[in-house]
């Protein structure tokens, strides 16, 4: 079945440093989504990428979809303590969404 992997599993950064998480799918995806889950909270939709090579920005967050539509990345510039949480990528898999294992980001003030 379809597998979605993410690296790294954990990332600890100093406030102000940059952060990147990478997502890879075993199959080509029609689209990819990113979610953020704050500690103790629930996953919240951030963005969806659809086109090959697409790049989207949300303030300090930059999302990319690979040319082959099998990988994606999320980059945060100058992290802040509010960025703390687990970032998940997810791709459509049949009648549901398959989530990657997530990258847990800690930001030290």
């Amino acid at each position: 079945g379809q597998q979605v992997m993410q690296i790294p599993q954990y990332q600890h950064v100093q406030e102000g440093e940059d952060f990147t998480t990478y997502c890879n799918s075993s199959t080509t995806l029609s689209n990819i989504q990113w979610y953020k889950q704050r500690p103790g909270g629930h996953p919240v939709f951030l963005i969806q990428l659809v086109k090959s090579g697409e790049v989207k920005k949300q303030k300090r967050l930059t999302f990319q979809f690979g040319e082959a539509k099998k990988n994606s990345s999320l980059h945060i510039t100058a992290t802040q303590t509010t960025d703390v949480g687990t970032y998940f990528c997810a791709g459509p898999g049949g009648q549901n969404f398959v989530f990657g294992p997530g990258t847990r980001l800690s930001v030290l003030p």
Partner: protein
Amino acid sequence: DTAVSQTPKYLVTQMGNDKSIKCEQNLGHDTMYWYKQDSKKFLKIMFSYNNKELIINETVPNRFSPKSPDKAHLNLHINSLELGDSAVYFCASSQEPGRGGEKLFFGSGTQLSVL
């Protein structure tokens, strides 16, 4: 108004008991889901359901059963609870998958602890 609401938020129970978690969405979505999140934060699909079809993840024990009285509700019933069932259970909804542009809206989760 909360888009996807689930109750209870916390559920502590003894092994062997039967329990239910309720979920309601007011977004008019066609499809609802149950996800299980374990202690390592892995989100695993348990069920997806729309007004046409129930899709069950084959790894889910048959002690778990979804019940949908109508399009806006998808409750989760669990029989004969086991220690390994302890996890956070999230309900979610979306427009029907496959049409593009759908995104998941999650409930706030139910933390189930089986003693």
